[in-house]
């Protein structure tokens, strides 16, 4: 059996891919299945009741707080995604089209470095920047633009959005950059030769060809942001809590893991559904153009 596996090319490939595959199966797919199952159970203090029930989901529908939190989370994730990708595109474009080839990896390195430094501390420093006595307020006070510190920039949704847009920046830049790098430059020349101006060339050639990168960037920002509870906890204040904070509370403080599991499942399904709709709409748009 083993010899048979190692003698063919596909056999050797499958054998080699099996450790990472089974690892992902055991530690990702299996736990995801478990959490779905778990969301149909109930917990009474420490004892888990394994009779199948829809109670957790009923509770999520009945109590308006869960729906409101989910809605707010999806809104924050969507705004963060739009802001991050819009800010990231020009950077990716700049590095791909305007930076000398031998300097490109230096630019990418500079862009990715802040991303690899402690996330907790970065979030905390945004508090220092946006706070009442923070960098922005002291700066603006000193140059006399404002008379008293601005308060709308910390402990609310705005602060959460700024911080998350900062945290996910490289995730948006890199896929767009890779897509832009793949564009055959002669296509752009052809478009110019055929009489399109610079702007139209961008919208009719560059942007559609860069779309796969933009889609990847959108997904890689939109999906993980729903699961962040550090930023809303530190930056959001009382009105800025999101669904991930609720999931965390259900699991760790309230000891109601099945309800937390149901919330996690609902959050996951919502982002997946929205992502799929986005992919489909984008496909239709690209097909409509060609």
């Amino acid at each position, binding site marked *: 059996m083993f010899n048979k596996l190692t003698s063919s090319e596909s056999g050797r490939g499958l054998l080699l891919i099996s450790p*990472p595959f089974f690892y992902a199966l055991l530690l990702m797919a299996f736990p995801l299945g478990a959490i779905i199952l778990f969301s149909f159970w109930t917990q009474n203090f420490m004892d888990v009741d394994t009779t199948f029930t829809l109670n957790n989901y009923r509770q999520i529908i009945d109590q308006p707080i869960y729906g409101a939190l989910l809605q707010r989370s999806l809104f924050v994730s969507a705004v963060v995604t739009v802001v991050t990708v819009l800010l990231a595109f020009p950077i990716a474009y700049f590095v791909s089209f305007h930076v000398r080839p031998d300097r490109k990896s230096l630019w990418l390195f500079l862009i990715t*470095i802040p991303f*690899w430094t402690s996330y907790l501390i970065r979030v905390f420093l945004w508090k220092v920047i946006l706070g009442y006595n923070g960098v922005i307020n002291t700066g603006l006070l000193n140059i006399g633009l404002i008379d008293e510190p601005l308060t709308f920039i910390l402990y609310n949704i705005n602060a959460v959005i700024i911080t998350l847009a900062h945290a996910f920046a490289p995730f948006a830049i*890199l896929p767009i950059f890779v897509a832009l790098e793949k564009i055959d430059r002669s296509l752009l020349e052809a478009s110019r030769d055929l009489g399109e101006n610079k702007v139209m060339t961008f919208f009719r050639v560059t942007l559609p060809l860069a779309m796969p990168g933009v889609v990847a960037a959108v997904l890689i920002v939109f999906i993980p942001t729903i699961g962040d509870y550090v930023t809303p906890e530190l930056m959001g204040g009382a009105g800025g809590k999101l669904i991930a904070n609720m999931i965390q509370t259900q699991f760790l403080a309230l000891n109601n893991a099945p309800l937390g599991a149901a919330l996690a499942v609902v959050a996951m399904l919502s982002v997946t559904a929205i992502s799929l709709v986005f992919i489909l709409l984008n496909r239709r748009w690209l097909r409509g153009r060609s």
Partner: protein
Amino acid sequence: MSLRIYAIAYLVFLYAPIVLLPIFAFNDATIIAFPLAGFTTDWFGELMTNRSLHTAVKNSLFIAVMTAILCTLLGICAARAGAMYRFPVKAGIMGFIMLPLVLPEIIVAVSLLVVVVQIFDMGLSNWTIIAAHVLICTPFCIAILNGAFQNLDPSIEEAAMDLGESRFSAFRLVTLPLVMPGIISSMLIAFTISLDEFIIAFFLSGTSQTMPVYIWGLMRFPASLPVVMALGTILVALSIILLTIAELLRRRGMARAGVKDKGGFL
């Protein structure tokens, strides 16, 4: 030109928080705000004497080293399989392995928590964190190792086998030295991710805290914030050094494999 100005402004935005870190780490005041007071190195001194911090750092280092080794091994399997062989449903399997990249971390954390505690009724330990960190780091390792493995000419390994080496020793003697820089680079990245990871560690840590979990605890006490700044300064400096080494090695690996550098970790 205006794009260049935008790019520089963007870099300022990216670096703004990190630049502030050393400023407050050396600032002689317990409140993290402007105006600055005098210069002090007290906060760094406090780090040296803090026992519970030392335990947390030791835990984190152990977790990060184990994670780096394990997920690089998994990454080597995946990158080599992806580059060298064709097999059924290859794209599907590869996509499945890369999936943790987009999975929200809280989902990874709670699902593993449920499996470990509720279903298997096991205790949480450093190993539960390692297991989760390996899962989320492997896609990053694969992305880096792909760069090292992808354009490697399979015929050099075949030549070694024709000359009498076994399949494994051909890999060890020919391919391994060529991809070594990529392997080290992948280990450094995984180490950095694991060392900084908080969301999962918070759910899965047992009695012993990791460093980010310890920092999270400190953040509740305003008096300990300057110490957090000092610790953060050291961590950021360390990360930058490790990443610079990783980047230099990655480039050397690309050069050895004869690939034109397209830049970037992902």
